C-alpha cells in the first residue's frame, strides 16, 4: 500500500459567532481516497466545520491546507476550484428537470456557456454516471425517481467539476437499508478513484461499514479521532454525548400479569394492496414495535388505525369494545393519536409558537363561551413543557427555532394534551441526534409506564430492539414474524427484516 497523500488539512481552526464558540482549535486531516465520518450532536460544530471547508464561513484563526496550498480563508468559488463539493441534506436538485440536466447544468454555468448543447448535456451526464458505475435513465424528470436516485444524481453533479473531496451531510437519513448499501458501494467505487469523502451521519451503525477514520466533535472541540476499525457504537456514543447511554437499563413488564384484556386488538385488518389479515394485540403499558422495509405496509397499518386509510375489512377493539374507524375523527374520539413521519410537514405549525402548537388539539376545551383566553393556553403549555422537559426559553417562541428533538417533544405534547389511550409514533427519531434520541426513548417508556399503549414504527434496528417489548416484522403486507424482547440480537433482527 502506498503512503497516503494528504488532500486537506485544517490546522487549529476556530470560529465564533458573537459570544458563542462554534469551533475551537480543531485539526482535521483528510487523505486522498479516504472516507472520514464526522460525528457529533446538534450544535457540536459539525456544520460549522463543513461550511468552513466549503468556504461559506471564514474561520477566525487557523489555516487550511489543500494540497500544497495554504489558505487563511476560503470562499465558495475557491473551494469548488480546489475540487471540494458539498452535498447538502436537501440535495439542492431540480425535480422538474431531467437527470441529465441536473448533472450537467453546473458545467455550463461554471464555463459561462450561455447556449446549451443537449448533446453535450447527455454526454457529460453519461460519462459521469459511468464513472460512478451506475445506471439511471438520463432523459426522465428527476421528480419521477426515488430519493435514492436523487442522491446519486447529486454525487454525479459533484463529480462533473472534478471533485476530489465530497462532503455528504446526512445523506442516508431518507434512504432504506438497501439504498444505503447501494450508496456505500458507489462511495467505495469512487474511493478507488482516489476521491475522498467527509461523511456526516447520525446513524452510528453505518460507521463501521463505510468509515476509514472517525472524527467526533463535542461542544465545538474535537474529542476523538480514531481508525474506524475496532471502534464500537458504545464508545462513539460516549464521546458524542459525554455520558454513558444504557438503553437496556429499564425494567420490563410481564404483561400477562398486568391485564388480560388488550388495550388494542386488531383482528384480520385488510386493506389491499397495502396489507392483509393483520392481527395483533397491544397490551396496556406495552411498547409494540412494527418494522419492515419501506413498502412492507408498516406505515399503512398505522394510517389505517388512525383512520387515514381505513381498512376495508377486519375489526379494531379498544379495551374490549369494538370501534369503527372510518376517518381521523373516529380514531381521535377512540383515543388513538398518531405522530407522523414527517413532523415538520404534517405535524407542527412551524411558524407558530410552542404554546399554540401544544394546545392546538384541545383548543375547544380551553375556551370560555367561545373566547380564547391567552393565560389558559399559557398555563397548559407550561405544564407540558415541564412534564416533557422541552428545552425552550419560553412558550411563545416559534417551534421552528427549536432543535429537532425538542420539536418532536412539542408534537408529542400536542397529542398528550388530548389524553390519548394509544399513541402511534412513525419514525420519531429520524434526523435527531443520539442524545435527544435516547431521551425520546426514555419519554416513550415513561408514557408506557403511565398506561398509554405505544406503537413504534421504525426501521432503525437498534432503536426498535432497545425500546420495544415486542416487535412485529412486516413483509409485503403481512406479519412475517413476532419477536419478543431479548429473543434476537441486532444482526439476527436485521437478517429477519431484509431476508
Amino acid at each position: 500500500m502506498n503512503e497516503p497523500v494528504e488532500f486537506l488539512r485544517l490546522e487549529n481552526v476556530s470560529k465564533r459567532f458573537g459570544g458563542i464558540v462554534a469551533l475551537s482549535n480543531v485539526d482535521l486531516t483528510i487523505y486522498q481516497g479516504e472516507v472520514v465520518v464526522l460525528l457529533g450532536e446538534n450544535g457540536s460544530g459539525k456544520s460549522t466545520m463543513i461550511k468552513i471547508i466549503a468556504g461559506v464561513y471564514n474561520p477566525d484563526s487557523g489555516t487550511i491546507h489543500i494540497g500544497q496550498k495554504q489558505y487563511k480563508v476560503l470562499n465558495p468559488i475557491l473551494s469548488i476550484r480546489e475540487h471540494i463539493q458539498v452535498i447538502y441534506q436537501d440535495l439542492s436538485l431540480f425535480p422538474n428537470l431531467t437527470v441529465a440536466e441536473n448533472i450537467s447544468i453546473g458545467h455550463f454555468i461554471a464555463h459561462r456557456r450561455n447556449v446549451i448543447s443537449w448533446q453535450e448535456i447527455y454526454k457529460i451526464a453519461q460519462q459521469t454516471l459511468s464513472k460512478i458505475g451506475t445506471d439511471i435513465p438520463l432523459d426522465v424528470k428527476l421528480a419521477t425517481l426515488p430519493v435514492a436516485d436523487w442522491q446519486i444524481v447529486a454525487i454525479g453533479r459533484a463529480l462533473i467539476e472534478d471533485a476530489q473531496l465530497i462532503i455528504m451531510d446526512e445523506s442516508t437519513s431518507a434512504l432504506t437499508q438497501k439504498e444505503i448499501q447501494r450508496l456505500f458501494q458507489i462511495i467505495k467505487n469512487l474511493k478507488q478513484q482516489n476521491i475522498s469523502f467527509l461523511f456526516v451521519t447520525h446513524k452510528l451503525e453505518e460507521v463501521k461499514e463505510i468509515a476509514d477514520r472517525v472524527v467526533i466533535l463535542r461542544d465545538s472541540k474535537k474529542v476523538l479521532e480514531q481508525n474506524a476499525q475496532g471502534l464500537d457504537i458504545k464508545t462513539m456514543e460516549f464521546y458524542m454525548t459525554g455520558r454513558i447511554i444504557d438503553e437496556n437499563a429499564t425494567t420490563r413488564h410481564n404483561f400477562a400479569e398486568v391485564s388480560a384484556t388488550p388495550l388494542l386488538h386488531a383482528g384480520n385488518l385488510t386493506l389491499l394492496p397495502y396489507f392483509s389479515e393483520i392481527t395483533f394485540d397491544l397490551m396496556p403499558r406495552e411498547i409494540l414495535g412494527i418494522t419492515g422495509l419501506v413498502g412492507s405496509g408498516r406505515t399503512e397499518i398505522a394510517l389505517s388505525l388512525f383512520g387515514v386509510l381505513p381498512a376495508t375489512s377486519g375489526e379494531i377493539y379498544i379495551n374490549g369494545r369494538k370501534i369503527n374507524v372510518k376517518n381521523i375523527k373516529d380514531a381521535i374520539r377512540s383515543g388513538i393519536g398518531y405522530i407522523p413521519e414527517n413532523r415538520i410537514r404534517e405535524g407542527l405549525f412551524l411558524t407558530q409558537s410552542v404554546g399554540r402548537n401544544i394546545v392546538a388539539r384541545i383548543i375547544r376545551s380551553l375556551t370560555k363561551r367561545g373566547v380564547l383566553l391567552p393565560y389558559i393556553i399559557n398555563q397548559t403549555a407550561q405544564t407540558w413543557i415541564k412534564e416533557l422537559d422541552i428545552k425552550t426559553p419560553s412558550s411563545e417562541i416559534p417551534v421552528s427555532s427549536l432543535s429537532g428533538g425538542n420539536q418532536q417533544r412539542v408534537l408529542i405534547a400536542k397529542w398528550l394534551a388530548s389524553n390519548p389511550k394509544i399513541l402511534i409514533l412513525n419514525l420519531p427519531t429520524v434526523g435527531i441526534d443520539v442524545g435527544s434520541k435516547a431521551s425520546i426513548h426514555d419519554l416513550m417508556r415513561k408514557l408506557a409506564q403511565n398506561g398509554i399503549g405505544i406503537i413504534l414504527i421504525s426501521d432503525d434496528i437498534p432503536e426498535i430492539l432497545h425500546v420495544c417489548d415486542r416487535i412485529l416484522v412486516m413483509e409485503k403486507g403481512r406479519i412475517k414474524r413476532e419477536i419478543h424482547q431479548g429473543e434476537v440480537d441486532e444482526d439476527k433482527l436485521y437478517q429477519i427484516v431484509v431476508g
Partner: protein
Amino acid sequence: MERVVKTYEFALFIALIGFSMVIGFVKPAFFSISTIFNILDNSVTYTIMGFGVLIVLLSGEIDISFVAIAALSSYATNMLLLSWGYTGGISFYLIIGAIFGALLGLAEGLIVTKFNIPTFFVSLGYQILLYGFTLFFLGSTYNFNLPPGLTNYYSEFLIRVKNPFGAETSLNVPVLYLLIIAIAMWLLLRYTLFGRGLYAIGGDREAAKRVGFPVKRIILLALIINGILASIAGNIQNASNGYFDPTLFRGNDLNVIAYVIIGGASILGGRGSVIGVVLGVIFIQVLDLGVIYMGISADWQQLFIGLALVIALSASTLPSILRRIQE
C-alpha cells in the same frame, strides 16, 4: 413518440380536436379554412402576451402588469411617432414600443429584485400605476390619429379565402409575427442558459442559487422580455383596431394567465411550454367561437365559457395530482 403522447400538451391537443369535432358535428360550417384563419387571427395578441406570462410563471413569479405595459407602451409609441411626423408602417411601432416595454419591464424588475418583493405584489400596484399614468399624462381618449402607413393595417393579409357565408376571411400578417416569436421563444427556453435557468429557479430557487444561477438577473431579464412581448401585442392590437386605446387589455390580465395555465404552466413555477401557451389560447378561441356557432345565446355565453374554464383549469392540475397518487 411515447414521451410526447404522455405530455399534458398532447392531452390538451386531443381535447382540442375532440371539442372541435363536437362543434363541427353540430354545425358542419365550423369545419372550414376560414374558421382556422379566424381562430389564429384572434389568438395572436393573447399568445404573444402569453409567452411573457409563461416565462415569468416559469421563474416562480406572477406578473399582472403586462396588460398595462401593453397599453402604455403602444399609446406612447403612437404619440411619439406622430410627433416625429412618421408616415410608415408597423415596423417602427414594434421597435420603439419594444424599447418602452423593455424599460417598463426593467423598472418593475428593479423594484422586485432590489427590494426582494414578490413580483405579484409589485405588479398589483404597478398595473394601476401604469394605466393611471397613461390616462393622466398621455391621453384619456381613443386616439384615431394614425400615420398613413398604418391606417389600413387591419386589412393587410397573407392569404384570403371564401368563408361559408359567402364573404371572405383573410389570414392577417400578424400571424407571421406570432410564428416568428413562438420559434424564438422556443429556442430561448430550450437552448439558452437563461431559459434553463427559468425552469431551474422555478423548480427550486435555493438549489439554483447554490449551483450558481444568477437568480435575480434571470428574474429581471424575464420581466424585461415580458414587457417587450406585451408592447408588441399592444401595438399589433391597436394597429389592427385602427385606433390607440389608453385602457387596452384592461381586465384581461387574469384571462391571459388562465390561458397559459390551461396550456400546462404551473402557477408555482418550473413547468410550462411554448406549445402549451399556443394550445391554451387556441383552446379558448375555439371555445368562444364554438359557443357562437352552436347558437348558444349571448346571455349564456359567459356562463358557458366560465364553466369550461373551471373544468379546463381543474384538469390542468391533474398531472400533479396523479403524480401524488402514484407516490
